[in-house]
């Protein structure tokens, strides 16, 4: 025989004002199995809790129901009290008779009847509740960071400096991401390489960081605290330990392909170093472009001239398995594909560039050594048109969202152009100027007032080439006049898109994506660095367009969240998870198919629950045709009794 106690709270007059609490307590006392029932003015107060503890001990109660406010407020309070009196916390249930009853009704007799039903339903539930202990699993105290841009670098350094081992995986041959391609950064005009390369070196030298470049995550299994990842390490055919960066190999390599680092403005050889400060400092033989390596008869020129014998054509792809407790995804962005901007002649006219290409022209280590020259004829452009929102804020044709950083970098581009070409003229077409941020508005003002950049509010309708000039047709909506500019160069502030391959990666990691393909955070306000998957965190432009300071802040936030997991010896998990009754299970696998967490699998023809992955949602319960799978402490039996109680009387 169960021995349940019921405790009805007045909550001052909050409950007692519309619910006859004494009557509720009396009615509940009549139910079989309820051996104690009383009311008190404030159950959550110290005397109230003492009263509960005392009753549990004196009446030898094995379960209790507290009829009071929402479980969100005091479930923990009363479960702790139950625990102190010697019964398992899961044998305490809350009947919400305030938010869902006394506060929303005025008719006292009817509210009292409803409160009685709610409390009765809780009694029926608690009678069948099992005593449970939180599930605990040990934590693998290492982290994986995916993406070696500024966000990944920051997150990896923060984690490593907190004392945890980090594996930093980057798919290209060097870390640095897009930030290392930039010339100077707004609004302070710090040289991007000057502020980033020290961090890159720190990553490569850090004893806690295992850097894996030219590598991709192939597979992720497991759960928070215990992930298993498979990382594909592609062959670079060059041993970084032996490579002395003498550059002899590139001089003899006969293959020239567009250089990704300069966005096609220059070429590179099939064996190359992406940029002189690359980390790791070594060459990569790109086997997609070296025509012979797949047939194992490489032309051999690079190996012939390599004095330290660093080149090894026999390197093979390797799959490395690692175990980690937390994962930070910082896969960054790519610019909106130029093929999409046909109206702006992008890809058709060599002097129509995107923002990153212009960054390369501005860069002292870029293809023109920091001189602004037209790619077509290497002449200095005297009239340059910058077009903002190229692909952004255009729901009909392109991306609906604002890419956030373009107003600022366009202002920077126009300013730096004027610093390089004093007699030149810069025009900026804009829809709005969004310069929220510390020192940002002042920076834009400076561009207009000190550097004489002409801002034209309106969109550009067409760009075409005429007699060596790029003619820009636009509209100045403030004066209502049509504008025609015979420009020498046009720079498009292309929209930011999630980096290529982000979608496949999201699938591998079981991360959610928003409608634009950026990785979705767990809550837009309160959990901005957590993903929907427990133990995986987001940083940088992979989550939404953002500038460097925001990316760094989010990366540090993600690292701090990861530390919360890694700093624990064991992780605890709610034990109200699914359980299979083996003799009812037919092994049909329907529950396996619907589980949102991949917590179910078939083993020996029966469904099996991975208790650590299971979140207890119960979708499997509703799917099972034979009621063979139930969530502990909210079984179909319990719900049936609760329904009966809700309708009774």
């Amino acid at each position, binding site marked *: 025989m169960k021995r349940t106690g019921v405790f009805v709270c007045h909550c001052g007059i909050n409950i007692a004002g519309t619910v006859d609490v004494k009557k509720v307590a009396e009615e509940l006392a009549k139910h079989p199995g309820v051996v104690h029932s009383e009311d008190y003015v404030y159950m959550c107060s110290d005397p109230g809790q003492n009263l509960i503890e005392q009753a549990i001990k004196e009446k030898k109660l094995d379960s209790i129901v507290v009829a009071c406010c929402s479980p969100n407020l005091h479930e923990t309070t009363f479960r702790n009290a139950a625990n102190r009196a010697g019964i398992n916390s899961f044998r305490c249930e809350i009947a919400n008779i305030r938010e869902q009853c006394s*506060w929303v009704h005025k008719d006292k007799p009817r*509210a009292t009847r409803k409160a009685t039903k709610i409390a009765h339903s809780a009694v029926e539930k608690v009678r069948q509740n099992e005593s449970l202990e939180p599930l605990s699993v040990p934590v693998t105290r290492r982290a994986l960071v995916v993406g070696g841009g500024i966000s990944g670098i920051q997150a990896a350094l923060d984690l490593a400096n907190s004392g945890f081992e980090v594996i930093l995986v980057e798919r290209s041959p060097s870390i640095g991401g897009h930030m290392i391609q930039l010339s100077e950064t707004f609004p302070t005009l710090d040289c991007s390489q000057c502020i980033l390369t020290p961090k890159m070196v720190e990553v490569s030298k850090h004893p806690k960081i295992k850097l894996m470049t030219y590598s991709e995550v192939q597979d992720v299994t497991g759960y928070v605290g215990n992930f298993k990842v498979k990382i594909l390490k592609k062959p670079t055919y060059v041993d970084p330990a032996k490579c002395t960066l003498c550059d002899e190999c590139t001089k003899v390599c006969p293959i020239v392909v567009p250089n990704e680092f300069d966005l096609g403005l220059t070429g590179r050889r099939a064996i190359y170093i992406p940029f002189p400060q690359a980390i790791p400092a070594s060459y990569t033989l790109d086997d997609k472009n070296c025509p012979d390596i797949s047939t194992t008869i490489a032309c051999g020129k690079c190996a012939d001239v390599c004095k330290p014998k660093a080149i090894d054509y026999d390197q093979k792809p390797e799959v490395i398995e690692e175990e980690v407790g937390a994962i930070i995804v910082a896969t960054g962005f790519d610019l909106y594909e130029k093929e999409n901007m046909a109206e702006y002649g992008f890809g058709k006219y060599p002097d129509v560039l995107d923002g990153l290409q212009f960054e390369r022209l501005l860069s002292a280590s870029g293809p023109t050594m920091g001189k602004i020259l037209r790619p077509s004829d290497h002449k200095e452009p005297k009239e340059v048109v910058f077009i903002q929102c190229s692909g952004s804020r255009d729901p009909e044709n392109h991306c609906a969202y604002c890419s956030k950083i373009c107003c600022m970098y366009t202002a920077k581009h126009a300013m730096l152009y004027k610093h390089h070409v004093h007699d030149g003229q810069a025009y900026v077409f804009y829809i709005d100027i969004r310069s929220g941020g510390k020192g940002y508005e002042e920076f834009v003002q400076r561009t207009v007032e000190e550097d004489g950049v002409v801002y034209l509010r309106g969109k550009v309708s067409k760009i075409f080439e005429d007699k060596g000039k790029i003619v820009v047709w636009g509209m100045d909506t403030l004066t209502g006049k049509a504008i025609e500019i015979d420009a020498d160069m046009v720079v498009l502030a292309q929209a930011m898109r999630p980096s290529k391959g982000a979608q496949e990666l999201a699938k591998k990691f079981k991360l959610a994506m928003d409608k634009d393909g950026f990785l979705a955070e767990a809550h837009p306000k309160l959990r901005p660095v957590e993903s929907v998957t427990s133990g995986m965190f987001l940083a940088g432009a992979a989550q939404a367009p953002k500038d460097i300071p925001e990316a760094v802040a989010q990366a540090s936030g993600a690292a701090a969240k990861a530390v919360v997991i890694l700093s624990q010896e064991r992780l605890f998990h709610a034990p109200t998870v699914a359980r299979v009754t083996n003799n009812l299970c037919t092994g049909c696998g329907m529950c396996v198919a619907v589980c949102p967490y991949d917590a179910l699998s078939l083993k020996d023809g029966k469904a099996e629950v991975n208790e650590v992955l299971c979140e207890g*949602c119960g979708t499997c319960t509703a799917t099972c045709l034979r009621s063979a799978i139930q969530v502990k402490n909210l079984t179909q039996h319990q719900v049936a009794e609760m329904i009966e109680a809700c309708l009774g009387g």
Partner: protein
Amino acid sequence: MAEEFEPRIVAFLCKWCSSAGSDLAGVSRMEYPPNVVPIQVMCSGSVSPLYIFSAFNKGADGVLVSGCHPGDCHYIKGNYYARRRLNLVKQLLEYIGLEPERFQMSWISAAEGTKYTQVIKDFVKELKPLGPQSKLRRTP
């Protein structure tokens, strides 16, 4: 004059959105009729067709299932399963002759105390003219 018919309604509310929305209605002191007795479930996806039949069998005049808005499920996609499954239940109930108004589904977020209040008010109003449900009710 006979006492006005007061329908008895069971509401299955998901813990994360609809139950929290119902709490918000309380905190905001909104008023709605006391005909509904809520049962908190973890997810609308866990609401088995059995629960709905069982409620009607035990004498419910109406059953409400409410979860997070599509796309907002705390458990990623439980409410999508609920939507598909319960639409079938609704069709089945209609097929066996139950008035379609007696079973309702609604997506109520934790911020929608007003919506919860309105859903309950409308539900009670729609059920009153139908009178007691006897089609699926077990004979005492």
